[in-house]
């Protein structure tokens, strides 16, 4: 009897486990849009995958920065919240360019009309995204 009771409790626990697993899996895939996200990634090119992860506008800007700034230069962001996930991804992506508080280049993101004393426009991607260089 005791063994049967144990077997029943064990079977019940396994059933609950299975139901919860299926429930959360289905919820993530369909209700939270994970399936649609998978399809999006599956269809995307290599470049497109980065655009999805970093955000199209931010990734375009990072690519532009990478092509514009000479190797060995240092930079700082304007318009990207320090230590945010976006900031972290930017720092990671741009390496071997390195961040610095007193940087030669300022990477201005989504701040139209931004200016700073001692810096002049170096290259412009569009009105909200451009690079300033120390004079």
């Amino acid at each position, binding site marked *: 009897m005791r*063994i*049967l009771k*144990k*077997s029943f409790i*064990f*079977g019940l*626990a*396994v059933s*609950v*486990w299975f139901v*919860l*697993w299926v429930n*959360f899996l289905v919820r993530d895939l369909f209700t939270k849009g994970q399936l649609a996200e*998978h399809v999006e*990634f*599956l269809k995307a090119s*290599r470049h497109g*995958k*980065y655009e*999805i*992860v*970093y955000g199209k506008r931010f990734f375009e800007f990072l690519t532009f920065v990478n092509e514009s700034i000479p190797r060995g230069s240092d930079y700082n962001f304007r318009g990207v919240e320090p*230590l945010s*996930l976006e900031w*972290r*991804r930017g*720092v*990671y992506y741009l*390496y*071997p360019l*390195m*961040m*610095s508080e007193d940087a030669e280049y300022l990477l201005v993101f989504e701040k139209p009309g931004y200016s700073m004393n001692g810096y002049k426009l170096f290259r412009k991607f569009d009105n909200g995204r451009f690079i300033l260089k120390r004079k």
Partner: protein
Amino acid sequence: MGFKEKLGLIFIFSTGLASLALFIAGMFGMEFTEISVLLCTGFVLVLVVNFVSIHSSGDVRFKRGQVSMWGVVSGRNLSPFEPALPAVLLLLITLLVAYAFFRALDKPIEAYDAVSIYGLKSKMLYLAGGVRNNFFNIIATRFQGAHPDYPLLVPMSEVCVYSLLGRFDDIAVKIIFPLFYLSFLVVFYASVKRITEKALPALLFTFCLASVKQFADYATIGVADLTLGIYFGIGVIYLYLWLREGRALFLFTSSLAAILCVWTKNEGVLLAGIIIAILVMSCLRLRKRSVAHLLYSASGAAIIILTIFAWEFFKREKGLKNENFNLSMITAKSLVTGLKKLPPIIYEYQKHFFGFKKWNIVWIAAACTFFANFRKAFTPNIKYITILLIICAAGYGVMYIFSAVEIRFFLSKTGSRFLLHILPAVMFWMVLLLYERD
């Protein structure tokens, strides 16, 4: 050890040891070229294959007529669906593993710690072509929050992959993590089967572990927590097997896993220290244990202690210090203020205890199994694993109490990860409580 178990261990240990060997060679000036990395990795692979092949015995075979889900506790068969269950579980595990590979490889490294700590360091090391003298200094001074003091198993493993590929590819490199997941599931299955002597409960527990969302998610994002949980899990599993069967291979497998805990994350020092403590405790009953047990345990513990000292010495030499927690924070004054942190700590952990989304019912099941098998939890051999898990919980509690970081922030960032570190060990302990003979 069975063939599958060996394969799992070979990947897990080869990756860890190759990353360590590559780092040491890099410190001595070796450049990371395709050839040098290939030679280094190949050398480690040969060593690990030889290591896991010694003293092997046959795998426990599937026993027909003892596999019913409803009879797993009693050993009796009551279900007409019996033959289909193992196949269904195997299929589900295969799907979970395939999904982990898919999720890992469908996007580049992008999670917070994965880019800011591990990915960044591996990119720096790979692009520099070696470990430069100023590497730690640059991390400390130019990259805020990149934690220069963190061990480098994950970054160096990523460097191995980049070097072998011959290019920087932060999508392909993520294959390491689901491979760890798959390899450990194989090892876990073999270990559980060794205890239960039946395939069905082994498959069932392997499925349960694989389907814990937190465990599966961390197999795809490129951080070190799953890896640490795996090394600690292996350390605990083979420590238990050593205590039960007295085979030196198991002891040294456990010790090697503990060493790689130290090389994976800072918390690994605590986890390796706990394995040392259990080894010492097991020797205290010397009348019942042989002198050989004492000597082997001492040598296993000594290897781990030497690794911890070597790493701590290296960190001191390089001036690397953890700002979140270090031993200088343990003072009487910080204990008084730290005790006020107990309510948020308890609150955070009860959230996880009932956090079905991330953990399913694993913690509730573990607690129920413990209370239902309370006496068994303190029988010879199993008691060491019970004590080990209690020390783990206490150790992480102490870390929270004495840490200088604001407690709610610290808990929100690390609480679930700490549970991930002990999850495989807890699952194995549940198997022991349910199936190990008294």
